[in-house]
């Protein structure tokens, strides 16, 4: 597939915002006394990130002025469900922020925020995992990776914000979690990479055309230049480039942030956590780019040669 920049940005940024909100909510529910000023600021960061994600997702639409229609088919479409859950999640965070500002301290809002963050991860992952013939996506690890990568980036971001604001106890609590979840996300992402490397696609040129011969060569795609089919479903990069992006996202997205988190825990302080965020952000964008680029759509069987 051709990675759509808007969707790459949206899923990465929203995932991190969800992780941030879940971390804050869990910290509050665990009884950590977080000052109101810090909580407000962190929630504003989360909401701004979600709004950037929402804006980016509009960029994916050919007719953004009709976007409101996308909430109609929630009975059957995961995309529609996501379109409902995302604004609801933003709304809950705003409500939570307002409640904190007016001094209302209730465990209900953090709980609902966690629930909606989880729902949003589920919807976002299922948009891809439900397409049964894109076999790189149609696996439970897609959901696991969306959740763990979101949590990892959210935890690292929380630690950076916490150490910048001098919230030592929050960093003490979230720091080890950031390290553990980043390592877990690395492990499950490697598992999905291994799954995809050994994947034997169900569709072949034989099943796509019904021609029995073992030796089929496409002589013409039916057009002299390109079409939507040759633009939308091919990433257009070399295998070498793909390999390099893979190495890049493993290092920047998981290995280096984990090492920096370790340093942060060992006394590296603010610098370590801020560096971790700065390194992980491009790494996870590359990870999501690769997630799309690696998926082989069965329609590509029909587009093997331009002539």
């Amino acid at each position, binding site marked *: 597939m051709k990675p759509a920049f808007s969707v790459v940005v949206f899923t990465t940024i929203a995932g991190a915002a969800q992780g941030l909100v879940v971390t804050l909510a869990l910290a509050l529910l665990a009884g950590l006394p977080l000052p109101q000023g810090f909580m407000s600021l962190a929630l504003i960061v989360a909401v701004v990130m979600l709004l950037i994600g929402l804006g980016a997702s509009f960029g994916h639409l050919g007719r953004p002025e009709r976007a409101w*229609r996308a909430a109609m*088919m929630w009975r*059957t*479409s*995961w995309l529609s469900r996501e379109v409902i859950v995302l604004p609801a999640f933003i709304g809950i965070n705003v409500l939570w922020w307002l409640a904190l500002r007016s001094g209302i301290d209730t465990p209900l809002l953090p709980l609902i925020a966690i629930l909606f963050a989880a729902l949003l991860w589920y919807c976002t992952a299922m948009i891809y995992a439900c*397409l049964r*013939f894109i076999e790189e996506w149609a696996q439970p690890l897609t959901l696991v990776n969306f959740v763990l990568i979101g949590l990892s980036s959210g935890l690292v971001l929380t630690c950076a914000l916490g150490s910048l604001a001098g919230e030592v106890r929050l960093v003490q609590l979230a720091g080890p979690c950031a390290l553990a979840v980043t390592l877990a996300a690395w492990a499950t992402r490697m598992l999905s990479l291994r799954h995809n490397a050994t994947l034997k696609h169900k569709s072949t040129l034989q*099943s796509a055309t019904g021609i029995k011969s073992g030796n089929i060569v496409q002589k013409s795609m039916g057009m002299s*230049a390109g079409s939507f089919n040759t633009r939308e479903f091919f990433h257009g990069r070399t295998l070498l480039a793909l390999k390099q992006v893979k190495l890049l996202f493993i290092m920047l997205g998981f290995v280096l942030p984990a090492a920096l988190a370790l340093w942060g825990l060992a006394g590296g302080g603010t610098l370590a956590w801020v560096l971790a965020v700065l390194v992980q952000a491009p790494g996870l964008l590359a990870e999501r780019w690769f997630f799309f680029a690696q998926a082989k759509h069965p329609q590509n069987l029909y587009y093997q040669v331009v002539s």
Partner: protein
Amino acid sequence: MIHWLQDLIKRNAVAEAPARAVTTPPKTATRVRAEPGETLAKQLALVIDLNVCVGCHACVTSCKQWNTSGSAGPLVDEHAYGADPTGTFFNRVQTYEAGSFPGTETIHFPKSCLHCEDPPCVPVCPTGASYKRKEDGIVLVDYDKCIGCKYCAWACPYGAREIDEERQVMTKCTLCVDRIYDERLPKEDRRPACVMACPTGARLFGDVKDPNSDVSIAIRERGGYSLMPEWETNPANQYLPRRITEVAGDTRAKGEP
């Protein structure tokens, strides 16, 4: 926002309004859309005979001509006279070569929406712009509702849908829905443009649910098959395989001297 309220109130009873009048009113008059998994009494489809298709692309051009001027159009052409022309088509003819020399076969392979009985593109549509008609099983897009998110194209294993780059809505084969019911046309012309144009009669059109229709008989007697059966989309369009014509009176095949 008024449209949105109207849609909510009417729920599923939303019909598309083509420029050329579709003159058959839905019999039930309440529900135009088929529910996912619903078994329909009628399913219009094409049966494509790979044995006689000569790859002339007449179906491609006639499809483009009819649909760019009809309710599905206009279908954009971008830099048509440039180095890298591109455009929206509902139907393409591809060419494959099978076997090894000197026994190779050239197979021309027309490819359009298969109007699946279980279309994976329909339930994923967030707006309900994509739907399958209850009355005849044609899969259509309501261009007034499509937001151009392209998710349906991702959800079609056959690559049958193409976005119109100018209008930024998803388009696809309509089985010439604005033609096949038009009572102002002579009865023999109420067929899809591609079927009308095919000089070799490689394209059959009819109801695959009627066991006595031309298409059902052809599928039954000529070994009609579906594309990518592994995804269980139950394509309504079927293909008739290539057959090697045996030479009359040739006894060599039977191993006689």
